[in-house]
Structures are given as structure tokens and as C-alpha cells.
């Protein structure tokens, strides 16, 4: 009953999307048409229906209704409640339903609340949103129906894999999806503005909160994914330039550029073409990523359950949406007039460099990720990994960091070098001091050395915009900028430090042995069997003491599950402010010894602290913008009210 209700709601929502598109197209041609007035209500009702459909799926999972195929495949009556809930989106069909639901919700909110733009642009935006949405509805209804019933419900579900019952993993998809869908809104706004030739600061102001929101979620999603891989996969790696990782990074790079570009358009009416192009590119990268990870076309350790048929469907959507938007962009090129002029040494100038550098890095990541696919068409297999991405990316990333340090200090429109001379000199002094210091004290490789230097420079530079300003009256978006840029420095510092200074020890230790790893002395106290609800393990007890201090006990495990049978390594982490001790237990070695793998990773946690800081900066900026918008809205309402009463 509930499944049929959900399916019906989904069909109706799709029909409403069709109506929204039709009404939008007619409305664009003839703005007086009555049907055009249906666009906004259609968006709102579509959102409600989608919410109903998703709610139905949630309910089916909560109740573990095994007559529904999706639930039977992915859930189990003995699962803890929270993982039953998370199981709703932890599969292909459910996650697609989540995607369209969030898209519909976003469309509904825009339809309900957004009045700042000319009505024609809004109609075009909502029509574009409906067009994109229809593709996904078709995908869901014709190829990935979440509400399919089983003729004979099984006695029990199949989804009790303990590895999937991890809260980090459960939250990873929705976080990234909020990001991707937010970018689809930006895409629709860009297409709407292109169609109606309204590339204005107002358009950027309306689009900006959506981009900010999406970007915050993407930042958190990537940060969380990196940390999960770090502690779960057992090898202490946090980024491998794996195709699926790149698929989430590319939209983030485009979104970061879009964010900055939209801000320039909003406040200075410049970078019009850039903003539109980035709006299209950002969502294109999301769709490309979806295609790459679900079609099975690339080999990756993170690859989802893949299906070339679904891949073909997504490719068709990709070609239609992205191809269409790029075509529109090319055809309307001459009608986006030049924005305000600005000089080289200005904040706009720095942001142009920012846009260009981020786009170049995006291009390189795209090239490296897709290159093996290209050569395979010629029957040649190559591998492109960190030894390519790190140096080639650095060519564009490192100079960009220099501009990141100096850019926020520049004034809009035109600035002079004399005015910023002292802060620039201060930053340069810090950078050179760190460079020389690290180089002479600890000879490390060039890339981490430059990383540390620039991290120090950006860290200092990110606070310099605060000087001479009243901290209490500082607008929230400025705090956001400071915190986010500082977060970049923190994350970069963590990455460079871990790369350059980590120390690994691989030993076959006897009980009672003490191993030295950097400043740590680790003693193997015992190796004992341990057991859990559905696993048995060998658990090592290690006493680790930092520079001769009191030892802390950590217990890495080599764990064996039996339903389904598999073996995992549960690493043990000991976190200090200046790094982490990472310990993993292996198998038995000869002579009653045990394989131990130990790492001292200085400042590695700063990578993820930095990521959280970046997202926090974005949140501060978003709050500031939304509060500002609300204030302006209230002020306008007040003025309107006063006019009415005095009239």
C-alpha cells in the first residue's frame, strides 16, 4: 500500500515537472500566457509530492517491508534503527530518489520564496530545473524503480553487512548529494539567466546562497570521505587521486571558483561570462562524476555496484543537459555584455587569477582521470596516479596560493602596490623564514617544502584583512572569508607535514618487545582473542608512550566477521595535538611473533580540521548573506507598509 502510494506520488511529481517545463516554455515565449502562472505552484506541489514519495520509502525501510525488492536487498530486521534509516539512501535507487527529492525541494523553495529576479528569469530558471529533473524522473521510473515489489517476499533481508553500518559512511551520500543538487540549482539559474539575457548582480545575489550551501556540503562530504578512508582502509592514506575521489573533487573545484565569481558579479557587476560558465561547468562535473562512478567505465577501489545500462541512461542525461547548456552558452556569447572594468592589481584581478587557476586544476584532474579511458579506446592501458597529479597540479596550485594570500588585501577596482606593500612584505618574510628554516633543519622534498611555506604564508595572510577594522562590527561574510582561507592553510599544513615527516615501522614483534617510532616507544603487551556480536578478532594491546611520558593503551584488531564472512583490520589511533599514532595488527609471523604496522603521522589530523574550518567559513558567510537578505526584505516590507499607510 505504502509502496504503491510512493510510486504514485513519484509519477505525479514527474507529471508536475512536465507541467512546470511546459508552462515555463510557453511562458517564455508569451509572458502574458495564463499557463505561465502555473510554473511556481507546479514547483511547490512537485516538492510536496516528492517529499511524500521519499517519506514512503523511509517508512518502508523503517518497517523493513520485505515485499519491496529494494528493502529485501538492502535491509535486515535486526539492523539498528539508525542504519535502517540510512539504508534508504545507501543504494542506487534510494539515492536517486533522494537526489530528485532534494532537487524538487530546492525548486519548491525557489518557487515559493524567490521574488527578487524578473519574473521571466524565474520562469526560465524553474523550467530549466524541471528539464533536468524530468531526466532524473525518467531514469528513476523507467530504470531504477525504488518501489518495485517482489512476488514472493523473502523471510529475511540481505542487508546486514557490518561494514555498511558505520555512521560516517551512512552520512557520506546525503552530504555529497546536497552538494550536487545545490549545484543543479546554480545550473538552472545560469541557464535561466542565459535564456532571458539577465546576467545581473541580482541574479548572482540570488544564486550565491545556493552555491554556498552546496559548496559547504561538498567540502564536508569530501573531508569526511577522506577521513573515513584513512581510518577504515587500514593504510593511513587520505587521498589517492582515485577516479571516484576525483569525481567528487571536480565539482568542488568548479563550485569554489563559482562561489568567488558570483561574489564578484554580485558586488561589482564583473565576471559575467565567467560566472555563467562556471555555473554550467559545476553541475556538469557533478553529473560527470555520477556517470563515472555508476557506469563501471573506470576502475576504482571505491567503485559502486556498476551497470553499463544505467551508465548509458546517465550518459544520455549528461549529453542532453550539459551539451544543451554549453550550446546555449556559445550561442548567447555576444549578448552577455562586458561588465565593469578593473585593473590588474585589484580584487577582481586576483579573483580572475583564482578562477583561471582553479579551472586549470580542474582541467588537469579531468585530463588525468579520463586519460586511461582514452588510451583504452586504442587498446593501450596506462595508469595515472599521484606521481602525475601532485606535481602537475602544484604548477597551478602553488602560484594560486600566493594570489590567495595577497588577493583579500586588495581593494576593488583599482589598487596600488604601495598600499599593500607592508603586509606583502610581512607575508614574504614569514614565507622565507619557514622555507629556510625547514630546508636547513629537515631536508625534505620540494613539494612538501613549498606546501609548508605557502601554508604559513596563507595562514598569516588570512588574518591580515582584519587589521584596521572593528572586529565587533565585522560582517559575518568577512569572518567567513578569514576562517575559510585559514582553513586552507591548516589543511595544506597537515598534508605537507604528513607527507614529509611521517615515520613508518613495520615489525614482527614478540610479546614484550618495545618498538621505537619517532618520538614514541610502543610496547606489545599482549595479543588476545576478542569477540563481538558477529565477529571474532585477535586484539593486540599496545602501550604507547610519547617521549617517555605515561603510556596510553591502544588496541588494534584483526577482525573476522562471519555473516557475511570477511576480514577487516580495525586500526587503533592515538591522537595528540601534533599528530596521530596509527597502529594496525597483522598476522602471525614466524617464531611466535606478530606483524605490527605503526605510523607516527605529525599533524595529519590538521588536514580534516582544515576541511571543517573551510566549511565553517562558508557557513559564516552563508549566515551573513541570509541574515542580510532577511534584513533587506524586512526593510522593504516596512517601507511598503509605511507607503500604504501614508497613501
Amino acid at each position, binding site marked *: 500500500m505504502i509502496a504503491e502510494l510512493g510510486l504514485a506520488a513519484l509519477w505525479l511529481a514527474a507529471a508536475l515537472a512536465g507541467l512546470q517545463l511546459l508552462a515555463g516554455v510557453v511562458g517564455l515565449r508569451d509572458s502574458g500566457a495564463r499557463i505561465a502562472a502555473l510554473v511556481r505552484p507546479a514547483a511547490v506541489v512537485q516538492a510536496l509530492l516528492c517529499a511524500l514519495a521519499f517519506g514512503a520509502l523511509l517508512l518502508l525501510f523503517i518497517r523493513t517491508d520485505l515485499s519491496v525488492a529494494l528493502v529485501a536487498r538492502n535491509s535486515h530486521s535486526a539492523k539498528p534503527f539508525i542504519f535502517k534509516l540510512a539504508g534508504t539512501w545507501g543504494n542506487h535507487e534510494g*539515492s536517486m530518489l533522494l537526489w530528485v527529492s532534494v532537487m524538487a525541494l530546492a525548486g519548491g523553495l525557489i518557487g515559493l520564496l524567490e521574488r527578487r529576479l524578473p519574473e521571466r528569469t524565474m520562469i526560465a530558471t524553474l523550467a530549466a530545473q524541471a528539464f533536468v529533473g524530468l531526466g532524473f524522473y525518467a531514469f528513476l521510473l523507467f530504470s531504477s524503480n525504488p518501489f518495485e515489489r517482489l512476488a514472493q517476499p523473502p523471510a529475511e533481508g540481505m542487508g546486514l553487512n557490518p*561494514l555498511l553500518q558505520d555512521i560516517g559512511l551512512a552520512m557520506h551520500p546525503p552530504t555529497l548529494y546536497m552538494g550536487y543538487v545545490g549545484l543543479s540549482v546554480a545550473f538552472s539559474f545560469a541557464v535561466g539567466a542565459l535564456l532571458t539575457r539577465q546576467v545581473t548582480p541580482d541574479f548572482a545575489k540570488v544564486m550565491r546562497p545556493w552555491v554556498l550551501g552546496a559548496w559547504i556540503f561538498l567540502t564536508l562530504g569530501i573531508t569526511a570521505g577522506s577521513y573515513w578512508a584513512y581510518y577504515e582502509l587500514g593504510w593511513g592514506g587520505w587521498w589517492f587521486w582515485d577516479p571516484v575521489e576525483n569525481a567528487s573533487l571536480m565539482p568542488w573545484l568548479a563550485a569554489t571558483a563559482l562561489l568567488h565569481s558570483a561574489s564578484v558579479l554580485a558586488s561589482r557587476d564583473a565576471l559575467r561570462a565567467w560566472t555563467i560558465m562556471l555555473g554550467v561547468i559545476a553541475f556538469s562535473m557533478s553529473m560527470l562524476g555520477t556517470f563515472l562512478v555508476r557506469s563501471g567505465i573506470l576502475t576504482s*577501489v571505491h567503485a559502486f555496484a556498476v551497470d553499463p545500462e544505467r551508465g548509458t541512461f546517465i550518459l544520455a542525461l549528461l549529453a542532453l543537459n550539459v551539451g544543451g547548456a554549453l550550446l546555449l552558452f556559445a550561442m548567447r556569447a555576444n549578448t552577455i555584455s562586458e561588465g565593469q572594468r578593473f585593473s590588474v592589481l585589484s580584487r577582481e584581478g586576483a579573483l580572475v587569477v583564482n578562477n583561471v587557476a582553479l579551472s586549470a586544476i580542474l582541467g588537469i584532474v579531468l585530463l588525468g582521470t579520463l586519460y586511461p579511458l582514452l588510451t583504452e579506446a586504442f587498446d593501450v592501458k596506462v*595508469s595515472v596516479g599521484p606521481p602525475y597529479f601532485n606535481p602537475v597540479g602544484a604548477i597551478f596550485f602553488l602560484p594560486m596560493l600566493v594570489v590567495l594570500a595577497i588577493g583579500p588585501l586588495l581593494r576593488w577596482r583599482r589598487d596600488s602596490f604601495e598600499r599593500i606593500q607592508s603586509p606583502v612584505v610581512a607575508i614574504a618574510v614569514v614565507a622565507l623564514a619557514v622555507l629556510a628554516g625547514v630546508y636547513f633543519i629537515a631536508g625534505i622534498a620540494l613539494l612538501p617544502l613549498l606546501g609548508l611555506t605557502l601554508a604559513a604564508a596563507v595562514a598569516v595572510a588570512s588574518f591580515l584583512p582584519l587589521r584596521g577594522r572593528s572586529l565587533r562590527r565585522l560582517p559575518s561574510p568577512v569572518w567567513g572569508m578569514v576562517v575559510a582561507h585559514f582553513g586552507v592553510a591548516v589543511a595544506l599544513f597537515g598534508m605537507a607535514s604528513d607527507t614529509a615527516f611521517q615515520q613508518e615501522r613495520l615489525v614482527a614483534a614478540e610479546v614484550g618487545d618495545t618498538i621505537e617510532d619517532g618520538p614514541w616507544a610502543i610496547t606489545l603487551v599482549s595479543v588476545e582473542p576478542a569477540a563481538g556480536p558477529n565477529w571474532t578478532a585477535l586484539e593486540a594491546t599496545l602501550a604507547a608512550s610519547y617521549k617517555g611520558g605515561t603510556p596510553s593503551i591502544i588496541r588494534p584488531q584483526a577482525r573476522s566477521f562471519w555473516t*557475511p564472512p570477511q576480514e577487516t583490520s580495525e586500526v587503533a589511533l592515538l591522537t595528540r595535538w601534533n599528530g596521530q599514532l596509527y597502529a594496525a595488527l597483522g598476522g602471525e609471523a614466524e617464531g611466535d611473533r606478530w606483524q605490527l604496522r605503526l605510523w607516527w603521522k605529525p599533524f595529519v589530523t590538521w588536514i580534516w580540521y582544515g576541511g571543517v574550518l573551510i566549511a565553517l567559513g562558508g557557513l559564516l558567510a552563508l549566515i551573513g548573506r541570509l541574515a542580510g537578505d532577511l534584513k533587506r526584505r524586512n526593510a522593504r516590507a516596512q517601507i511598503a507598509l509605511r507607503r500604504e499607510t501614508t497613501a
Partner: protein
Amino acid sequence: MIGFIRRPRCRSHPAAGKPRVHEPLRRGFAFVGIAMLILSCLAIPTSAQDTLPPAPYAYTQIDDPELEAKAMALMETLRCLKCQSQSIADSDAPMAGDMRHQVRSRIAAGESPEQVRAWLVARYGDYVSYKPAVSSTTWPLFAIPLLLLALVAFILFRRLGRTR
């Protein structure tokens, strides 16, 4: 003797010419890399793993820390052939361990990392190395970033130089 961290990564060859496997039963296990690894292993009973101990240098470091650092840096850029996409430094597959043994023994014997890489590439082609070499099939990988650099310079000079 069990391997270091026992995560089965067995991949005997799938039958030649078989189209890409759909594994419809497991479609629900989306989003989990580990699940994918399990998938490839449940096709083969877990008892059908080799029973011999890992190669001597699979889990032992070279005594000289400089040589070990060189070997480690190299191993992080060599691809495990039986895994979906991991370096041999990050894999518990027995073959990855055997490859690590080869790398460490050769480095300990005095070979340079590039010589060891060349030895492996001579056997498996460029696929085994994550560091693409400049060749007739990979020159666009290096030409395009140079082109991008030129394009960036062009855009910046044109856009910013104009308004001086």
C-alpha cells in the same frame, strides 16, 4: 600462515571474453568500496586462498632507512595488478606482497628505483606504474598542461593587460 591484514583480495582470472559482470544480487551494496572487494572474493570460496607465508620482504623493511625510504616511495607509485586501483604499498594481496619483495630485494641489492620500475614496466607495460612516462601514447598528458599554462597566461595578459 595468514597474511598481514587479512582482507581477501583473490582474483583469479574471470573467464576470457565474458562481458562485464552485473552481479545483480549485490546491486544494493552501492557506495562501499569494501563491498566491491568482498564481491570479487565471494565469487571464490575464502578457503581457496594460498596458504604459504608472505614473501620475506613483503612485510619487512630494509634495514637501511634511506634505502627503505627509496623503496617505499617507489612502491607507492606501482600498481597492484589484482586490485581495483591501489598501489602495492597499500594492498594485502599476496601478489602485491611478492611485488614488494622484488622491489625491496632489488633496492637492497643496489638497483635504483627507476631501474626497478623499468624492470616491472618491461613485464607489464605502463599500466603497472602510476607515474606515466612520456611516450608516443602519453604525450598529450604532458602537452595539455603546458597548453593550459600558455592559455592561462594568454587569458590573464589579455584580460588584465587590456585595462591598464
